[in-house]
């Protein structure tokens, strides 16, 4: 293991998250995956361990940590189960817009309950016609007296139905283009707000995915996050912050897969030797380890870069997301190959890891979109001089 010079506090975060993974997540991951069941109790355990408040400032009841602290916790959880880790991460994704752009009142109202884990949050951006192209958003919000009235449907929303607090983007003035979108806080139980049925997924089956349906959904005027028209800005800033988290899910997942593959290779005997003794196997494992460690190093560097307080973090944030999640797909596929027939069976954990890996290349911006972001950043950087 490479020494990343973690502080004492950071090591504590790793230790706490690792213990939750060993004692709570790993024993339950198979059942939750099979039953496609939301990990309510495990999230409560995580809350009790103070980790829901990791990235939330102390004045709102959090730990006051940064992107790097979050990355460390997510990596440990993902080593056990990306589905459960996603449910945890999605609450942060729902909280970031309020933290980034919300009024002091909104922060005071929502951050303490999110930090304590009493209520989970979620993020509503994607729609049927607005995925990679966020400008295709159809959901609208119209001010009517002291209330905003929302209409439209959000698709594939993680934690939908289980979360209580939703950060949602809607068009408030279509004529203004990208400056015509705004973000709002919608609460579970608001009039006119309901959920679609639970989606059936390839992987991360412990996480819940549903539609958010707004039919003349009325919310108080002060639920607007930031100023009117700043919705896209808030979304972009949110994703800049959250992408290293997704990247660290890839790192944790890759580590989990490497652990399984090496331990298996050491005890599986063919031709009279453990298969670990064959170079054909060793080289696959070596490549897995190389890619994993390189990804981890980039994710940690990107998270520390974000925590340094610099303004534009899109490029490193996208770079680490692409690298670590492509790595996770490759490494989990290789792990199945190392375990071969056993690996393909549900009795062993690697087939689930491979199923779970795919979403990492898709959600919070596909890896193709991330490459666009990186390309645009390069174009900008080299135009300055």
């Amino acid at each position, binding site marked *: 293991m490479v020494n990343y010079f973690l502080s*004492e*506090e950071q090591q*504590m*975060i790793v*230790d*706490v998250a690792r*213990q*939750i993974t060993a*004692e*709570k997540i790993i024993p339950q991951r198979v059942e939750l995956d099979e039953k496609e069941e939301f990990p309510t109790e495990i999230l409560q*355990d995580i809350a*009790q*361990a*103070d*980790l829901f408040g*990791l990235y939330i400032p102390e004045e709102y009841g959090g*730990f006051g940590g940064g992107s790097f602290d979050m990355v460390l916790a997510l990596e440990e959880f993902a080593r056990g189960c990306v589905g459960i880790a996603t449910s945890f991460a999605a609450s942060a994704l729902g909280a970031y817009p309020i933290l980034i752009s919300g009024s002091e009142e909104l922060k005071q109202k929502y951050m303490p309950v999110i930090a304590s884990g009493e209520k989970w949050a979620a993020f509503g951006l994607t729609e049927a016609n607005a995925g990679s192209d966020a400008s295709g958003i159809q959901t609208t919000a119209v001010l009517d007296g002291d209330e905003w009235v929302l209409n439209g449907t959000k698709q594939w929303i993680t934690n939908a139905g289980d979360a209580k607090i939703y950060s949602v983007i809607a068009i408030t003035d279509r004529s203004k283009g990208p400056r015509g979108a705004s973000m709002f806080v919608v609460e579970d139980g608001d009039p006119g707000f309901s959920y679609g049925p639970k989606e059936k997924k390839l992987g991360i089956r412990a996480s819940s995915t549903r539609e958010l349906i707004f039919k003349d959904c009325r919310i108080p005027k002060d639920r607007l996050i930031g100023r009117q028209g700043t919705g896209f800005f808030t979304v972009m800033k949110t994703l800049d912050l959250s992408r290293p988290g997704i990247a660290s899910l890839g790192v944790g997942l890759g580590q989990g897969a490497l652990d399984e593959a090496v331990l298996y290779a050491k005890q599986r005997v063919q031709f009279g030797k453990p298969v670990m003794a064959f170079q054909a196997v060793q080289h696959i494992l070596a490549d897995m380890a190389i890619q994993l460690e390189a990804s981890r190093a980039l994710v940690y560097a990107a998270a520390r870069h974000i925590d340094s307080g610099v303004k534009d973090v899109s490029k490193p944030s996208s770079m680490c997301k692409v690298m670590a999640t492509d790595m996770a797909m490759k490494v989990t596929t290789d792990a199945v190959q190392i375990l071969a027939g056993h690996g393909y069976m549900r009795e062993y954990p690697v087939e689930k890891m491979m199923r779970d890996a795919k979403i990492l290349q898709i959600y919070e911006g596909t890896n193709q979109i991330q490459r666009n972001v990186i390309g645009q950043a390069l174009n900008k950087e080299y135009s300055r001089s």
Partner: protein
Amino acid sequence: MKIIVCVKQVPDAKDVRLDPKTNTLAREGVESIMNPFDRHALEAAVVLKEQYGGTVTAITMGPPQAEDTLRDAVACGADDGVLVSDRAFAGADTWATSYTLAKAVEKLGPFDLILCGKQAIDGDTAQVGPGLAQRLDIPYVAYARKITECVDGVIRLERLMDDGYDEIEMEMPALMTVVKEINEPRVPSLKGKMKSKKMQATVLTAADIGADTECLGLQGSTTQVVKVFSPQFSAEKCMLTGTVDEQVEQLLDKLEELL
């Protein structure tokens, strides 16, 4: 309510080895953990504190490094830790240990409840909890699987039995040992961990607790471990062949050989 939880540092059961020369547990290089049953006792204590208010003090008898177990206890919700440590305590059996712990508890002053795990996974005697209650002359229940309520100085609980459970009321101060069915121990919280780093355990020596040195450690122990060994099983398999009568004949011969 003032609650005391007895915790013991034990070698991690995942990695138990005997030293082939001394026949004692090889502790070198083996990770130490809090006795798993004691984690359940601690959790029960912390839940009681959350429900009824009060304090939870973790106490352990052991060498200086047993302080790590007290830190774990504080990380999981205990308020403070007491390390009962002295060279004179070395080699104590359950008789001497319960004496030592009783003196230490008396030194700490009045309490309402003492919680212990049902047994430690290294010694496996299940004697120290009940022994401590006897020394302190307080009522006790072993194998508690549920605490129903705790009001007006009376604790109501369920005791796990082979064929069901008993419902019991007990006046406090009292002691109980718990089985793992009582709860699901929490993992340490981040704030708890930070608090535990700073924790300074109260250290009590033989002199501090006013113990009679005759009653301590190996000297005060009524039992001595003469030898520890892994039993050798040498089961032999033998197939008898021939007609039924021949087989019966052979079997009788074999049995005669053995008797």
